């Protein structure tokens, strides 16, 4: 029989997805599957880094994220310095904490005011919040600007800092340049305290999750660049042991890698983990501000992460003021770091959580291997776990309400995709 071509009319609209997709399936009213897919740019950059000079790593990795370039730079320079056996102290170390303060402020404030607060207030986005609560949004914008200004002053540029280098800084900012920022940072500290009070008034769903928290812990400080990697289930390791204890694995529904503690499972990094593992490292008046906002020393409610972020903004303003008051220009502004046939690891605390990088430098002095594990991929499995909890209670909800609740739950952990205001491509299947 001769086959004839048949035309089947379909008329199906395929939409361009955002940077994230969520698939939820109910069967007979019971939640059966939850899959979250998040696009991860670092894989591309790992390939890009191979064959480049170690000194290029801070510049290349800064391109991975426009919101947290400093975090990528900090993990890169510390990994290279560890490979060379160089430890930096004094004013260079302080400047690195200071530039990180700037990034925590701008990144957390962006998240609190532009993305997360509208969720709690039932508004579609920050533009609506600006229409109804103009003064609140203006305070957020000015506070964010203070963080960006700090990054710009030390990093040379706010968007893609160029002044950070392996071994220190190309040029150290002058004492006067930093002191000129003091009045705005004094204002910022007050605004941060008002932010804590504001987010404490938001209607807060009450769920408690049994996370394994993972964060850096330092002997005396609330952590940015240094410390051991500890967890709420007893881990206590040096950053170079990361690959011995954690593993990345491919999941069936995503090209992204997830991470877990070997032989144990999901874990959570980020503000909740940092705060809960390091509450005793916060200055007493900030601990008090946290208590006044309704937080205990450990916080397992992911929705309350908005309060924890506000506390960390307050801490970052406070720490920035302290560092600037004591600052003297380092001389020289960097130390030479010679690298050949070496391996280095580092983990630092990005606003979104632990950011681990590992480099192998070959005999030719070029990068032979690069591995970058951002907080978002480490948190994906825990975010899915939250979504199971939230979606299981949302069986009777309309898709639009379920979407809003799921988006809010994902935004609790500020994954990189939440840069996109309402990114989520939600598919609900009910069988």
């Amino acid at each position, binding site marked *: 029989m001769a086959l004839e071509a*048949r035309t089947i009319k379909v008329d199906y*609209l395929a*939409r361009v997805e955002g940077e994230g997709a969520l698939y939820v399936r109910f069967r007979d009213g019971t939640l059966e599957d939850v899959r979250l897919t998040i696009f991860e740019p670092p894989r591309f950059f790992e390939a890009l880094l191979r064959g480049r000079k170690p000194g290029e790593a801070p510049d290349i990795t800064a391109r991975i994220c426009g919101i947290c370039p400093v975090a990528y730079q900090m993990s890169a320079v510390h990994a290279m310095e560890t490979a060379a056996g160089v430890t930096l102290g004094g004013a260079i170390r302080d400047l690195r904490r200071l530039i990180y303060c700037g990034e925590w402020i701008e990144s957390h404030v962006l998240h609190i005011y532009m993305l997360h607060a509208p969720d709690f207030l039932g508004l579609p986005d920050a533009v609506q919040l600006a229409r109804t609560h103009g003064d609140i949004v203006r305070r957020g914008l000015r506070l964010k600007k203070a963080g960006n200004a700090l990054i710009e002053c030390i990093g040379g540029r706010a968007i893609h800092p160029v002044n950070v280098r392996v071994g220190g800084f190309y040029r150290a900012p002058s004492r006067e340049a930093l002191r000129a920022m003091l009045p705005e940072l004094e204002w910022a500290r007050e605004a941060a305290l008002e932010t804590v009070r504001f987010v404490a008034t938001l209607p807060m769903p009450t769920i408690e999750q049994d996370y394994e928290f993972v964060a850096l812990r330092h002997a005396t400080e609330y952590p940015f660049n240094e410390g051991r990697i500890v967890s709420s289930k007893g881990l206590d390791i040096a950053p170079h042991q990361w690959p011995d204890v954690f593993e990345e694995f491919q999941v069936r529904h995503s090209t992204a890698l997830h991470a877990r503690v070997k032989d144990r499972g999901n874990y959570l990094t980020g503000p909740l983990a940092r705060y809960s593992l390091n509450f005793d490292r916060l200055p007493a008046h900030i601990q008090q501000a946290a208590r006044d906002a309704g937080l205990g020393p450990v916080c397992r409610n992911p929705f309350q992460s908005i309060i924890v972020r506000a506390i960390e903004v307050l801490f970052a303003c406070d720490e920035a003021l302290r560092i600037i008051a004591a600052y003297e220009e380092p001389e020289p502004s960097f130390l030479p770091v010679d690298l050949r046939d070496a391996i280095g690891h580092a983990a630092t605390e990005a606003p979104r959580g632990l950011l681990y990088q590992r480099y192998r430098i070959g005999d030719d002095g070029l990068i032979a291997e690069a591995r970058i594990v951002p907080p978002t991929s480490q948190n994906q499995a825990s975010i899915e776990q939250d979504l199971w909890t939230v979606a299981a209670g949302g069986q009777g909800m309309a898709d639009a309400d379920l979407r809003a609740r799921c988006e809010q739950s994902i935004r609790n952990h500020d994954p990189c995709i939440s840069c996109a205001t309402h990114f989520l491509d939600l598919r609900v299947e009910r069988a």
Partner: protein
Amino acid sequence: MHEHRLMRDLMQRIESVARAEGGGRVIRVHVWLGALSHFTPDHFAEHFTDASAGTIAGSAETVCEVSRDVRHPDAQGVRLVSVELE
């Protein structure tokens, strides 16, 4: 990446249509490209060739209708209009 995801979605639909119609080979696919969909016919064909390789629609021809209307409600999307089976 956007393009890859969209193509994946589209391929799933094409394959399910072909299966539902008896599983014949797909020889032609007719699509409507929204004005804000990121695709030109050439770029779409290139992505389709990659996405369809080894599937029931491998080596199928693409016919694209390009919309210029940026205010069309589906301007950001790609519409699968029809599938021609052998």
